[in-house]
């Protein structure tokens, strides 16, 4: 990889009581790279992202972000990371604009950047609307806008389109595509929608039961299907789900 490394995950393990959520993951992500962590529910995607985000500590292994670990570097790392969680609820009775201003203040960022973000996530018309009155898609766009408010070097999106209708999902994809074209932000996106991974990301990591099953570019991964013993019918397009099924015997959305 010729681009500088922004995230390096080295042989990381994490358990919760009796559940081994992550079992020896190694991963390297370069600057400007869009990476999808693809896997079914319970595969360990969120735990991996939470460890990168600094919310969880690995039981074993190390995580480096811009060459730094979380210990003693909290403030620096929080300033360069943008984050959108699965189903975040903001304060119901604050408007879209007030919510952006609130989160911008945490980064010591002023109103001008909030205007930019409002435009970026296409919520200008909803500027005065209370968060409680937004649709699911609009709320997710607001969450994405908040994640982008600090012009992050690293953007972590945990299932950003789960539960959204196809139109709302495409709107989120458009915003992320323009981000890819216009900035050097690195993206880690967890999803169980293979279409999302295929559409947005140039590097895909398939995980299941806390382990990486396969990783590579979409072309590499789809090419591997040809070598697998069980092949899909030739009459339809080959997808990542076919690869996952070949590897595990299950579908991604199971």
């Amino acid at each position: 990889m010729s681009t500088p490394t922004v995230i390096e995950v080295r042989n990381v393990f994490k358990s919760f009581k009796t559940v081994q959520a992550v079992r020896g993951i190694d991963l390297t992500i370069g600057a400007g790279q869009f990476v999808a962590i693809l896997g079914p529910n319970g595969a360990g995607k969120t735990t991996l992202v939470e460890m990168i985000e600094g919310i969880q500590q690995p039981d074993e292994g190390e995580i480096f972000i811009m060459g730094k670990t979380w210990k003693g570097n909290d403030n620096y790392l929080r300033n360069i990371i943008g984050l959108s969680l699965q189903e975040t609820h903001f304060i119901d009775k604050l408007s879209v604009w007030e919510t952006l201003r609130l989160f911008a203040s945490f980064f010591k960022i002023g109103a001008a950047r909030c205007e930019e973000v409002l435009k970026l996530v296409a919520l200008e018309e909803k500027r005065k609307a209370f968060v409680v009155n937004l649709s699911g898609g609009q709320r997710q766009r607001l969450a994405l806008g908040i994640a982008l408010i600090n012009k992050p070097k690293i953007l972590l999106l945990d299932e950003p389109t789960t539960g959204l209708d196809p139109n709302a999902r495409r709107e989120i994809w458009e915003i992320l595509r323009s981000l890819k074209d216009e900035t050097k932000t690195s993206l880690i996106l967890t999803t169980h929608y293979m279409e999302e991974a295929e559409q947005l990301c140039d590097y895909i990591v398939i995980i299941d039961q806390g382990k990486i099953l396969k990783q590579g570019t979409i072309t590499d991964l789809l090419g591997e299907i040809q070598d697998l013993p069980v092949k899909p019918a030739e009459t339809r397009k080959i997808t990542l789900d076919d690869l996952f099924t070949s590897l595990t015997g299950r579908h991604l959305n199971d």
Partner: protein
Amino acid sequence: MIERISNSQLFQLILANIKELIREPGVLFWGIVFPILMSLGLGVAFTKKKDVITQVAVIGENHLVHQAADSLSLIFTFLLQNKAILEHDREGKLARKLTVPDDKLGNTTFIFKSLDWKEAMVLLKRGNLNIVMDEKGGAVQYHFDPMNPDAQLTYLKLSRLLNVAGTVVKATNTEISPLTVSGTRYIDFLVPGLIAMGVMMSCMWGVSYAIIERRSKKLLRRMVATPMKRSNFFLALITVRILMNFVEAGLLFLAAWLAFGITVQGSVPALLALFISGNFAFAGIAILLSSHTSKTEVGNGLINALSMPMMVLSGVFFSYHNFPEWSIPVIQKFPLTMMADGIRSVMIEGAGFAEIGMSVVILSVSGLVLFIVGMRLFRWH
């Protein structure tokens, strides 16, 4: 300068908390309007004389109307001499109504109902009446539960009336002098209790529940993933709540002043110090209470488990001195008791720092200690 302030995270956090608060009509109603309505309602109920209507069961019709075959009963003679009005009640039962006028304690109207023993027992069990009268061997008999204070009072009133040679005693010229001095009325007792209770409830729901709800919605986790200073988060939440409590207490006091002429007889600075220290204490409890759980149902239960006993025991509505002797030293250590007693002593006894200083110190220090413990246990996600 203005831009710098408006971009500061503490300012934005305070602003967000204020907006969230004032945009929720329920918060304004329950926080401000309801305590005022409650104080007005209870104040009016306990400061105005009210006629008391007491039903009395009289066994047998011969005590209410003269039966030719019988000799006159004592009860009938008494009712006749006092011109008790004969009537039928809603169920068609024979009754006599006798009003004892009293312009100081309020009139008492006795409704003597002619019932058989079984009917009387049914009404007694339902709580419709508390005393049954009868005659045996030429003497009036009273049947009632001696443990029931209402029944005791009815007995005392009735036996007194019947013993004064069949003449109704008018209380107008008796020696009862109702106390109307400011500070001795029920409303004077009630308002300080309501102010203290308002602070407790406001902190419990406005700080504790707000934190638990934000944790359950993952908002805390989202906020802590930014460079937000954690101290600013708490500072904003508690500052806004204390400001709100000042507004609530101020409006309650204003309403009580306008309606009942309540004043502060002691030191106003001491009252303010006590009020702020009470806020610290309850804010500390609220932070500790909300430090761990992310389930709003659990939060609801914890808040009720802590606040309900204090509401009942701490002498908000009625004096806790009616509770068993052994429990009083314990009750006096509750923060709500300490705050309510302190406010009461400043407002109605004219106390100052000398009398309530210890309460101020205990409330402030306990608030600080609970806050520190709560912060140590605090989970952001």
